[in-house]
């Protein structure tokens, strides 16, 4: 038992330290203004923007004001610099959502497709995903103010709408990650209306085959 105490203390210390390292900054950081304090963030944006094709699995939790518990969805995320973002929901039902420069495309399991055009002045929540995942800082700064915080390898970016038009749909987009890996996205309107996307296994630098591009993109 004598030997155990120091070991436990050490273990406890390690656990506490590990837990502390695993928690991203809890609050939004200061606003990033181009030309003033953006220099420290440019390498991260450049690295994230230069990842090439991305393929991830994800879980999505949707909180609605009318639901007691979140609706949980699972799926695969594909991101291509040229083709846009593809979210293939596999559970609870098969659905495909493509967000690209043309707008939004929804396709159900039977192959029925619906499209909505992009509105650059007031992107919907889903449409706002595209510039976020592209980490296209100039495009994002046209629509949002950016607040950024970092703690070691962990970072957090908060995008707040610049216009009341956009703010009607969205109060804040939060993107969290570690190193060059995005781990969580949150689209928040209010405490009872928000979407949380937890990025799971991720591959970067993926080259999508022609078959994949046809199946999962527009």
């Amino acid at each position: 038992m004598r030997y155990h105490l120091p070991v436990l203390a050490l273990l406890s210390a390690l656990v506490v330290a590990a837990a502390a390292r695993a928690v991203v900054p809890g609050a939004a950081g200061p606003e990033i203004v181009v030309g003033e304090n953006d220099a420290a963030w440019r390498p991260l944006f450049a690295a994230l923007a230069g990842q090439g094709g991305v393929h991830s699995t994800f879980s999505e939790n949707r909180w609605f004001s009318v639901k007691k518990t979140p609706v949980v969805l699972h799926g695969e995320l594909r991101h291509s610099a040229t083709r846009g973002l593809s979210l293939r929901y596999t559970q609870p039902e098969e659905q495909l959502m493509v967000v690209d420069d043309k707008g939004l495309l929804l396709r159900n399991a039977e192959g029925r497709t619906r499209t909505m055009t992009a509105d650059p002045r007031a992107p919907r929540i889903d449409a706002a995903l595209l510039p976020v995942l592209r980490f296209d800082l100039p495009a994002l700064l046209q629509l949002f103010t950016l607040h950024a915080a970092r703690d070691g390898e962990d970072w957090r970016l908060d995008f707040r709408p610049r216009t009341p038009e956009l703010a009607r749909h969205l109060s804040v987009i939060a993107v969290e990650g570690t190193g060059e890996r995005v781990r969580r996205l949150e689209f928040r309107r209010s405490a009872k209306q928000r979407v949380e996307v937890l990025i799971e296994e991720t591959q970067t630098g993926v080259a999508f085959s022609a078959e994949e591009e046809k199946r999962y993109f527009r």
Partner: protein
Amino acid sequence: MEPARQKWTARALLVLGALLGLLWLARLDYAQKISTDVLDLIPTGERSPELALARSLANERQARVAFFALRVADAVGRERATRSFVEALRADPAFAEVLAMGDTGPRDVLGRELFNQRFDLLLPGWLAARKAEYAAAAPMVPWAEWLAERTAAELEGFMAKPEAMAFQDLVPADPLLLLPGLVAQMPGFVETAGTVGDRALVWARTTAAPLSEAGQGPVIAAVEHALAAARTIEPAAQLQWVSIGRFAAENRRRIESEMSSLNLISLAAVLGVAALCLRRVPQALHLVPVVLGALLGAWVGTTLCFGRLHVLVFVVGSLLGGVAIDYGFYLFLQPPIRPGEPYRGKVRRLIKPLLASALTTVIGFSLLLFSELPLIRQLGVFVSTGLIAALAAALLWFGQLDVTYTETRAFARARLRGEHPAWRRGARLLLLLGGAVALLGPWRLHWRDDIRELEALPAALRAEAQELRTFFGESPQRTVYVTRGESPAAARAALARFLAWHTGQFPGAPVASLGLAVPTPEDFAALPAERARLGGYEPALRAALERHGFEPEEFGPFFTAWRGWLVAPISDYDTLARALAGALQGPPALALATAPGASWFVTVAEHAPGAEPPVALATVGLDQLQSLNRLFSRYRVSALQLSALGLGLVGLSVLLLYGLKRGVWIFALPAGSCLFAFGVLGLAGQTLNLFHLLGAFLGVCLSHNYAIFSAENAARGEEPPPSIRLSALTTAASFGVLALSSIPVVAALGQMVALIVLAALGAVELGPIARGKPRRKD
């Protein structure tokens, strides 16, 4: 009658006729009388439904739409310039509505109206579908409880769909998912983007109808002013725009310009040929009153007979100069048979061929009065009255002159003799060759009628319009249908039948129709009874929502509205549909009409035009162009039948006047010339249309005159008179001018007539040479 009295009588009659004609023309309201509207070329009582619809659409707000694309390279500058452009248009009374595309205003209005009326508009269909499901499943639970459980389960499933995010604010007031359900029924609904590349798109509706003057000039001025406003912000801004009014104005400008230039050039060409061939050039001026008299008579005749005339009649009517001058030639170039022959004697001698040629032509053209096509009827009257006026003017004009004969130059009378075998053989060879062309060429003819050939629009303007329409969603892979009915209820019932047919014909093809937002008459009629059975639905739904993990109290907005609706009076069907139509703005307002006698719903389907809906579905593909082209082909067949009948009458009258043998010879010349012209065009691979056919008819009537005068001279053992040569050359000159027209149908007509008269002239010239010696009098 003494010659002096005869002269004064002729003068008095000429002056009186001219004064009365001019007085009549001066009293006319030309803006009301003369139309440039392509639709006025179509009969008002047109039996084909698509044309009846096209007519009605042209006068409604759908026809008042204008599309704009403002091109500015810089995005920020584009937005500012577009705002300025839109504001300037809005400030102008010429425009009733102006929207920058991407402006969600009209969509919001539509959404708000549908939401406010959701129980009346959308619930009947929702209930009917579930009622059918309930009846099929025959469950043990009562209807209201089954329905509540079904509602909550559907809502739970919906929350896991991507579109749930877009509707999350609506769900507390619409747990039945009436609005999301409507959107899901319209997968073919595609929003138009606010920008395409570096162009900002603007949609507008003019205040006045596009075919009225108020819908053209003021609109064009307003657009120019708005562009100037945009350029104060972005000087390099470029504008593309399209509207029916702009097309109509441009078309009118070009047709009017053609009308004046073609008439002048045609007249100059006719007088030029006359001046060239007459020994004393100033004498050619004596032919001018004949041409002017013909045109005056034609204008008066047609404006007297028709309440409204298409401007093309006057463009094509410019050909009359080349025809009318014939009578002047025949009278003026005919030498006296003895010195001092009085004018009355000359007229008595020539009146038979003159009347024969004039009246047979008039009989032929009068038959066109039975045509279905207003333009053809109007042309028939124009030419008939013009020819009668020309003959009268010629008889009176030369009756009041001291000199009633003028000589042609030697070359105009010169003739090759057929005594030399080489000339004879050459002439026979040419005639044989012509005969071969006439027999073989027509078999290679291709016919195609295209209503665009009636317009004088430049290709660049068409291309601009096509590009703009593509920006605004028009695509060859999209078909627009219109379903009609005498009332909104009849139209909606027809729409239900059409959509069932469409699903069978084009399985899986997405469609969008605002008609789906209106209940079918059957579902709506069942609503009062169904509502009475929904008393227990609210508590059952609360419990079902609780079971499916929802917070029932969050649905307060729905339950409040539901309780209110249960006790509210239900409006009648037509009022409901009209309230929806009346509340709409912008492009959605064009998707339905609820006027009594003219109610319809537009359906957009995502497929290329294909099978046509059966007539019983009261639905037509709104591919107006195709419809009109098909219709014009039908008119061509009808015109062909009338022309054939007319030619038959002309031939018969010739046989009656000249006997069988001479009559056949006389009729062979125009018929052969006509076949030769068709043969040339067939061998040249030319595609022919309705106006080639009209030209052929006119050409036959004209060449028929040459045959008559040629036969009259041949009967006296004389060579064909020089008046035939002059007449044919002037006609060829005037129609040759028409062949240069930028309006394809006018060019077609000119080309055809010029070919026929030249062929007839060739035959008249070659005949005596081929025979080798002049024919002797019987």
